[in-house]
């Protein structure tokens, strides 16, 4: 069983396997399940993600009215204009935000790795799909690759905002997505690791400061940022750019930064954006306190 990204990449390269394949074999082994059973379980998660994106594009709004409708706005914009940031990137942003709008509206989503960061992995998947035309199996493999990297983060650092800030949630999700994009685009396992490292590096220090303690502001837009970064880092890694700091050391840095974060910036809704005049006003308006 792999404990670090280095071990994961070594297993893949030594045995000439995709990262997703290493993850699939390990899952079959620990759960004592067949390949078909493991694939079917992931297929169900993929269907939930597809439905969440489809629902969001019909336009959803949260009970508080703080979030919703932005995914649709971006899709409409893309029909009328050529987006400056590129079609794939803006499509990823829109679908990531849409998934999180569904989450904020208490719809059904698949946590990847958390609910607050649930937009990034599916958002990027359904956007790069338009350009790479993957098979259904490759789409499922995308989720196994993302999951393999996520497991390393969860076991060596943290994946919840309450424990490590938003860097642990959207940071991890964006990094996981970058690694999965690289594999789908035909990159090597070590290029996946480089993409992962470069995304997480850019997310270090990101705090979790939800307005009124709700998974809405700024969570939906952080999912936008996380997916944009995921696409950029994947391109950088595919171009041959390497992270000077190895992937596992970036995860270690994320862990230590999270430990140093005061609790007011770890999902308590007390600091950061939650503690701005508008943040406090919105909280009072919603809860009356």
């Amino acid at each position: 069983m792999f404990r670090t990204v280095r071990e994961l990449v070594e297993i893949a390269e030594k045995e000439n396997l995709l990262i997703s394949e290493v993850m699939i074999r390990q899952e079959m082994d620990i759960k004592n399940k067949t390949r078909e059973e493991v694939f079917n379980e992931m297929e169900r998660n993929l269907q939930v993600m597809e439905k969440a994106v489809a629902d969001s594009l019909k336009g959803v709004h949260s009970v508080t009215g703080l979030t919703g409708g932005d995914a649709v706005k971006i899709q409409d914009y893309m029909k009328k204009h050529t987006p400056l940031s590129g079609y794939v990137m803006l499509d990823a942003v829109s679908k990531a935000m849409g998934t999180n709008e569904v989450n904020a509206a208490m719809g059904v989503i698949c946590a990847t790795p958390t609910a607050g960061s649930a937009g990034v992995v599916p958002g990027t998947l359904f956007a790069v799909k338009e350009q790479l035309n993957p098979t259904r199996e490759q789409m499922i493999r995308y989720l196994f690759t993302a999951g393999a990297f996520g497991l390393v983060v969860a076991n060596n650092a943290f994946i919840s905002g309450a424990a490590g800030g938003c860097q642990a949630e959207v940071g991890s999700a964006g990094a996981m997505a970058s690694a999965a994009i690289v594999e789908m685009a035909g990159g090597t396992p070590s290029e996946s690791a480089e993409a992962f490292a470069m995304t997480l590096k850019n997310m270090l220090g990101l705090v979790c400061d939800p307005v009124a303690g709700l998974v809405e502001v700024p969570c939906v837009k952080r999912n936008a940022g996380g997916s944009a970064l995921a696409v950029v880092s994947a391109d950088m890694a595919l171009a041959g750019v390497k992270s000077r700091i190895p992937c596992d050391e970036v995860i270690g840095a994320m862990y230590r930064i999270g430990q140093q974060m005061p609790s007011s910036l770890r999902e308590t809704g007390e600091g950061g954006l939650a503690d701005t005049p508008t943040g406090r006003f919105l909280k009072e308006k919603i809860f009356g306190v």
Partner: protein
Amino acid sequence: MKFNSVFDIIGPVMVGPSSSHTAGAARIGLAARNLLGSEPTWAKIHLYGSFAKTYQGHGTDFALAGGLLGFDTDDTRMSKALDIAREKGMQIEFIEDSAKTNHPNTVRIITGDGKERLEIIGISIGGGKVEITELNGFELRLSGNHPAILIMHNDRFGAIASVTKILAKHEINIGHMEVNRKDVGKEALMVIETDQNVDDDVLLELEKADHIIQIAKIVS
């Protein structure tokens, strides 16, 4: 390692908005219900840390109630759980507790069904994954994601051997096991996480084994 399955990361499928504050909370509520072995009629729920600060925004309150009602994380009745509990006459009280805890997302549930009473402490460690860290004053580490049997027994020679012998006979594999006692020679708690659900006839056999007082199971 705390996380070993890819589905701990890509999953669970759940009703939003938060994996640790909604899905995790529902799983802790469900663990309390399973350990009680029946539908609770009342619950006093102490919330600590981030749970105490943000439970209303995250729906931690209705998720805990949903778990006590037996709802899974993706049950679309979740957001109505407090109303459903009220209709059923389940009395639930939430207490924002300012006591310091080791983990930011900690909850203590004291619950009962009129006959039995139970107290657990649960923590939500991220991505919907939870651990039960205390049961009726015994420290333990139970994920709630695997089937498990909890055996209250007297701290005597052979108590553990008599249990593992029966499990081996029925070819039930143990994934994680721990034993905890309050004092030497007094009551002790054995926690066994298994790879598959344990049938009731095996439980009956276990109940008759030497030094066993009481057994509860968690189905996964």
